[in-house]
């Protein structure tokens, strides 16, 4: 496109400014975590304080059972991710390769499930888990989350399966493979990239959940996830030196998804953009 150099520089300046503002909270988050605890509240404007101190990290690693929280977050996220993929794969397969009665109605139902505001389901689900004696347990956290974005996983996988060449599945069928074998030996391996993308998406989403793990697991320290643990650790910091330690905790808690994003940035962005455009 033909544009003047001035327009280009103006665009760069505005976008650059917006980006700096968006990143600023992270700069302060990291900066404060490395400030000496007694200087966190005194020179607020400078994001970094020298000399760099790791005292905040020492405090948080001493006082917070980080490995426990990390483990809970990991089991919770992995459980939801694997569970959703295991449920969504066969469903997406049926929706892409089969003709059957009520297909469109069932597909519509799956889509409708995505549009129900989550807050509506909290109370009944909580009561259900209380009846099943699953409060303050990881299975209790995982189960309702399996349904939460399942419709979306089915939807995304189906979009990929629909563009998968039929000749390949037909050839497999002529070779005598049954539909179960076609699903696991042909369709799944051929769509690994798409499945991984959906899985990473679910993983990040689940890892970052806060309200539901708080409701279900908030009653017992042993079932805190990382998000819940950090939130409840200093329930009432308003002033004083805890801010440094809290910031260190927030840096540590953000690292896992941050690293996944750095490593898989291209894949994550293109999945999201693709979902947005191709549908």
């Amino acid at each position, binding site marked *: 496109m033909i544009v003047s150099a001035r327009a280009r520089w103006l665009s760069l300046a505005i976008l650059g400014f917006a980006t700096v503002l968006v990143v600023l909270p992270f700069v302060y988050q990291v900066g404060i975590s490395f400030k000496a605890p007694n200087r966190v509240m005194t020179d607020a404007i400078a994001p970094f304080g020298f000399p760099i101190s790791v005292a905040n990290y020492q405090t948080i690693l001493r006082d917070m059972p980080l490995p426990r929280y990390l483990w809970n977050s990991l089991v919770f996220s992995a459980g939801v991710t694997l569970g959703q993929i295991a449920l969504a794969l066969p469903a997406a397969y049926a929706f892409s390769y089969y003709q059957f009665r009520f297909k469109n109605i069932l597909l519509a139902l799956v889509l409708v499930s995505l549009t129900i505001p989550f807050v*509506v389901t909290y109370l009944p689900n909580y009561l259900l888990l209380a009846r099943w004696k699953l409060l303050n347990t990881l299975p209790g956290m995982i189960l309702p989350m399996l349904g939460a974005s399942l419709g979306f996983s089915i939807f995304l996988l189906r979009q990929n399966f629909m563009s998968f060449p039929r000749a390949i599945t037909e050839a497999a069928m002529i070779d005598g493979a049954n539909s179960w074998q076609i699903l696991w030996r042909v369709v799944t391996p051929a769509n690994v990239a798409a499945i991984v993308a959906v899985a990473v998406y679910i993983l990040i989403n689940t890892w970052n959940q806060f309200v539901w793990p708080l409701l279900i697991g908030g009653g017992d320290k042993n079932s805190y996830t990382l998000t819940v643990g950090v939130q409840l650790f200093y329930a009432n910091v308003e002033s004083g030196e805890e801010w440094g330690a809290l910031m260190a905790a927030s840096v540590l808690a953000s690292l896992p998804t941050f690293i996944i994003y750095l490593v898989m940035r291209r894949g994550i962005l293109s999945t999201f953009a693709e979902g947005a455009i191709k549908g």
Partner: protein
Amino acid sequence: MLESHVRPTTQPRGASVRWRIGLRSAVPYLYLAPALIVITLFIFVPLIQSVQISFYQWNLLAPKQIYVGLDNYTALFTDERFFTVLLQSAYYLILAVFGNFLLPIGLALLTLPLKNRTVAVFQSTLFLPTVVAVNIAVIVWRWFYLPTGGLFNSLLNAVGLPTIGFLRDSSFALVSVSLVSNWKMLGFHFLIALAGLRAIPKDYLEAAAVDGAEGLALIRRVILPLFSPTALFLLVITLIRALEDTFVPLEAMTRGGPSGATENLMYSIFLEGFKFFRAGRASAMSVVLIVLYSGLIYWQFRLFERSVQYDR
């Protein structure tokens, strides 16, 4: 949650390539059953239960359910507080339209004169807040907003301005909360807007340039009309998500305060149910939420539907 960023397009797919196996057998239902059971059990059954509970007076602490008919609803609609909550919900929607609809589209249009590689840098960086947990990201914002020792008031005081109670003053608190959720979602909506712009065929732009269209005229006459499906999609998800996205910042920063000034409908439902244990009232509010949102929900559903290629 980020799940519904889906825009409709139609992929050409002739009926001839549609492949049929196992016509009218039980097999597809078996594949679908586990997923449908989970969705039904944890989404549709709770939805129906919410409607049912809304007709009862039920204090979760003393679990005795008393049928009260429409009392929960009449109580809501005669309660001035409830209308305040609805009004505040509308404020959140308006702020989200600026922060998560107009702003990302504006920023996306600004990338037009830039090289792809430069745009990629902005895209990856702006997306960062989407990747971290909201309640974790909120920690640094709480510090920003502190009356003493936080960043914003230190800056204000440094230039001789008085301290502002960003989260304590009821005239600032709602905007402060909204700012955090808008910050969080900006990069994601920017990504969608950008993808929508890129989907505009290059030929159109070149043809328009040959015809002499350039600059703002090109944007107004050629790009925006072609961009409108993406804009529509963005608007719908912005409106649908506006209240959900403020949920965690509210719980982690103000808990609806000061004196209810930051509450919105979704957060109030949560407070009624889990803080005040009034299950009937919370459920009645859930039903009101669904009814108020039904138009948007239907709209969103249609957008989804257009992109799933039903079989005819």
